């Protein structure tokens, strides 16, 4: 009896090992692909804040916190007003994956839960890069993102660490 159980245990460990190898390989492949994509689209995304915002550089984590409304104030105490783009837009997809590290559907689900539990509301979604720039320009503390081709006049582009 004990022998059989020991054997089963060993087999179990072997299977676990095999699984680990598979996962490792998959992770490696994904990582390679992601780095490639990141390199391609690096220039396709810009973060804009209102011109009065003193920041010149934001970390990716801070940016994600701001857009998921985990942090609501800038360091100087100004209220953060994030602004999103339509979910069909390519730049939104890029932003989600690169900065928020989530799919758009996951983000939507996150917000639905926040809405109906009465905790928070999502940032408004605007039609285009121009609408975003306009909004950022007009609102104090606003922050948004636009595609690389957009004219960011009147806003301040900050780099992402």
């Amino acid at each position, binding site marked *: 009896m004990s022998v059989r159980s020991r054997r089963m245990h060993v087999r179990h460990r072997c299977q676990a090992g095999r699984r680990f190898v598979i996962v490792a390989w998959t992770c490696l492949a994904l990582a390679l692909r992601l780095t490639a994509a990141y390199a391609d689209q690096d220039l396709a995304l810009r973060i804009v804040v209102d011109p009065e915002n003193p920041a010149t550089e934001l970390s990716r984590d801070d940016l994600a916190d701001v857009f998921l409304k985990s942090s609501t104030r800038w360091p100087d105490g100004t209220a953060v007003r994030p602004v*999103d783009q*339509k*979910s069909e837009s390519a730049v939104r997809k890029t932003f989600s994956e690169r900065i928020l590290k989530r799919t758009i559907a996951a983000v939507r*689900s996150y917000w*639905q*839960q926040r*809405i*109906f*539990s*009465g*905790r928070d*509301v*999502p*940032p*408004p*979604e*605007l039609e285009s890069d121009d609408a975003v720039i306009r909004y950022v320009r007009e609102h104090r503390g606003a922050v948004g993102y636009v595609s690389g081709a957009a004219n960011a006049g009147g806003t301040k582009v900050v780099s992402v660490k």
Partner: protein
Amino acid sequence: LQPSFRVKLLLIVGATALALSAVVIGSAASGVRQGRDLASVERRMVPRLLLGPQLEAEFERLRRGMQDAVAAQDANALDESRVTRTRLFELIASAGDALDPHDAALLRWRIQDYWDKASGVSQRLIGGESGESLVAEMTQMQELQRAAVLAIRKTAGFNREELSATFASIHAANESANEFRLAIGLGGLVLGLGLSLWVSRSMLRGLAELSAGFSRFATGDFSRQIEVTSEDELGHVAREANQMAANLKRLDEHRERSDWLREGQAGLSDELRGELDPAAVATRALWFLAYKVGARIGAIYAKGDDGRFYVAAEYAGRGKGPEAEDTFASGATPSFALGEGLVGQAAAQEEILVMDDPPPGYLTIRSGLGESAPRAIVLVPLARAGAATSVIELGLFRECTDQTREFLTSVKLMLMTAFEAARSQAALRGLLAQSQELATRLAAQEQELRLNNQELQVQQEELRKANEELESQRHVLSEKNTELDEARRRVQQKADELEKVSSYKSQFLANMSHELRTPLNSMLLLSHLLAENDAGNLTPKQVEHSKTIHGAGKDLLALINQVLDLSKIEAGKEEYELEPVPLEHFVLQARRVFAPLAEEKHLRFTAEVAPGLPAMIRTDRLRMDRILVNLLGNAVKFTDHGSVSLRIERPKSDVRFQRSDLLPEETVAFVVEDSGIGIPLDAQSRVFAPFEQVESRSDRRYAGTGLGLAIARESAALLGGEMSLASTPGRGSTFTCYLPEGRVSTADAGAGQSSRPVRTASRIDDDRAVLGPEEPYLLIVEDDDVLAAQLVDIIRSRKLRAIVTGSGREAVQRASERRPLGILLDVKLPDIDGWEVMERLRRSPATRSIPVHFMSGVDTPERGIAMGAVGYLTKPATRAELTGAIMTLTPPSQGGSQRILVVEDSVGQGEVLVEILRGQGLDADHVGTGCAALARLQSASYGCLILDLGLPDMDGLGLLETLAQRIETTMPRVVVHTGRALTRKETRQLELYAEAVILKDGSSEARLLEEIHSFVRHVTETLPGAQNSKPDGEKVVDRSLVGKTILLAEDDMRTVYAISALLRGKGAEVLVADTGREALEVLNHHPDVGGVLMDIMMPEMNGYEAMRQLRQDDRFRALPVIALTAKAMMGERERCLEAGASDYLTKPVDSERLLATLHLWLGKREADGIGSRH
């Protein structure tokens, strides 16, 4: 105011009851109010406590429902939230009283608002909107949600203020009720205490007064009464006590007065005691009366012969003149006639007269210093039978009280009597003087008489002297008597000593015989074995020597037996039993024993009964047999040619008997006549003495002990008869034994005689028709149909066959044609009797070992046992006894062990027996004590027990009895092998247990072996032909192992080596296996293995398991498997047998035991094999 205690107590009880009822009513009222408050809590608060969580849960469901609809992008799912909303409304409506109606309406409104907004937002979200306006809507929706949740919490939640208000009101009510109860209770307590104090104080005061009064009364102080102060119960008691005190006081006074009277009477009586003359009596009486009543002057007047009263005594009187010495006689000085003066008047009236205040000068009382007149004068007449005889006059200084008068009245009679007595005494004294004179004259006459008497005494003295002489002669006689007694006592003592010595002798002989027989037995057995020369290693000379030893031993044994017999007879210890014996019996017996011997010596032998004799005589059959054997034996021994004869006849008319009680017409003569060498005249008187032989001088041509005739003579004397001898040297001798006939009653004759017709073919329905060719059967030899039928029944019930015959001849024939399991043999048979049948059976080797059980109406079991029967049954027998008899003949059903236990105190003897038995291929053990035997029998199974009766620790019979009680299974067969002669009683007791009793004599070992063989045959029920096989040189044990293959399963190499060496030495092939599993494999490859020795403790698979598996294989079902184990514990054997072992041996294995066991099982298997081939 003084109310009674009853009223006071009622007051206390009433006040307490009032206070209690106030408390009870107050408590009930407050209880009702508290109940109401609690009910309101239950009706309003509790439902709200339940409703709150329900509403919250429903609201959560509503919110989540919309969230899920949005997540699923499904507008229809929103409808479900409408249902949830409706349910919320229903919950609010159902709350009823629990909710304030206003709050309920507000709540409804809040929920409705939220739902309207939320469903709008949801629809827009589903529609994919996400603009700024929607975000604003969401914010609004979240505010409405918070408002709705707040409303739910507020309305239906747990309302602390309301609850605490309610509880506060309940507490307040409770407190006020408690205060009320406390107040009422305290009030009642104070009131009760006050009343109790008041009552107890008044009671205690009254009781104290009463107690003081009672203690006064107790000490006799009646002067003060108890003050009555109250009208209550104590007052009543005080009044009663006062009444009682008054009564006591009256009683006390009365008692004092009567005491005074009694003292006076007693004092007076003391004064008048003794023999006094009349004057003294009068004086003493007067003085005492004066002292007692306090009189200061007094006189007594007595009636004289002339009827006048004269002064008899005075107290402080006027004095007497010199002439007044005897007032009775002279009549001088004042005297009064009846009725004369006051004295006379008082005498006439017979009443006490009192004169108060006599006039001055009437009488004066004088002392030396003064004088005065008395206050009262009392006159007391003493009258008898209507006539006054005396008058007492007393003068007092005080009035005569009632008490005085009473006292005087009470002593009147006593005084009267005293005076009369004094007067009669005076008269008596005169008479006494006369009688004294007469006495003087009588004394003179007496003197004369005394003289006559002296003469008579002289004559008496002479007579006494003659008597003394006689006495001394009687004394001499009695001395002589004492001497005689002494002499007789000494003789008696000597006789006792002699008897004791004689009993010592007998005891010694009995013990010696046992002690002699036992070693002798070993000698006989061993010498016999040697002479047989089984081993074949003795020279013919040595065999001859052995035979000589054997013969000498036999002679010695015969001598010992005869010495013992003689000593028993001489000591009077020999028992004998008179029974009716047919004379024909002696003739038959003589023919049977001596005809063959006579034939050997070419002698003519005749035996006959003369006509005119009774058919039976009453005697002891065995003793008489012995006498005849001795006489006839001598006759045959000392006769070389010619004839020997036995005649039974009436004694010749010229015979003179030495015994006076023998009558010729009631005496039978047994005449043994021979034509032998004869006895010289001078030796004829000596032949009956012990150890005498005619030719004891030189050559002992005729061997013999010389005791036979002595025993014969003593036996004859014992039976009430005598012996005589007539002989001529060279011509022959005639020994005659005369025996009294004895009275043979008709009943005895009937029992003894055989009057039944001869029947050869039995009418009993037996099994001869259905008996199969190989079937075992029992043979019943019995001409009584009823008994035979009963026996057949019992045998059939035991699944056996029975054949019945009524003829002895047929029985012998049948037994030799076809061997029965056993024979039930009746002694009394129409043709030849049972003894004869037995004799013939024993003579033929084919039938010798058939067990025979006797049945007889005559009770002579020892004869049956002596002939080698397995049992003896006395008729009439119970069914149980019959069954027992059949049991001894039939083989034990199952599980019989072949082992034999020898219980023998002599080690040598025991070892010899064991050796002999082992030589026969039997397994035998030897123990020396009864205790050891019991232990052995309990720990192991034995089929047979050979028992010596004389054991050091217990009696053999006791051992058997103990064994019968202790042992649960069947008793082993018991064979008693003893050197001790047995009494009839012992024989009978032994018969209860023992199969056979064998005396240690010359033929004992043959008998013993026969018994053992019969036992072995019973157990094994096999080996046709083996029943007669004497151990003629065959080494059974060795042969049984040659060519056999034996598997030894054992892991201990030393044991393997030892056992395999032993078995190989016996010619067996030995296979060895280390474990149980290996043993099974080896068996699989070698199915020809004849037997297995299986150790129990083995690695991998133990012996039990191996045996179990082995038995499951059909090929090895009957394979003998002998378990070996070191665990000699109780139950081990059963476990082994249960696991399938055929037998069981404990380690260390005894090689003999091992071989014996192997032989037994292998032999058995072979026999089974033979049986199955048939």
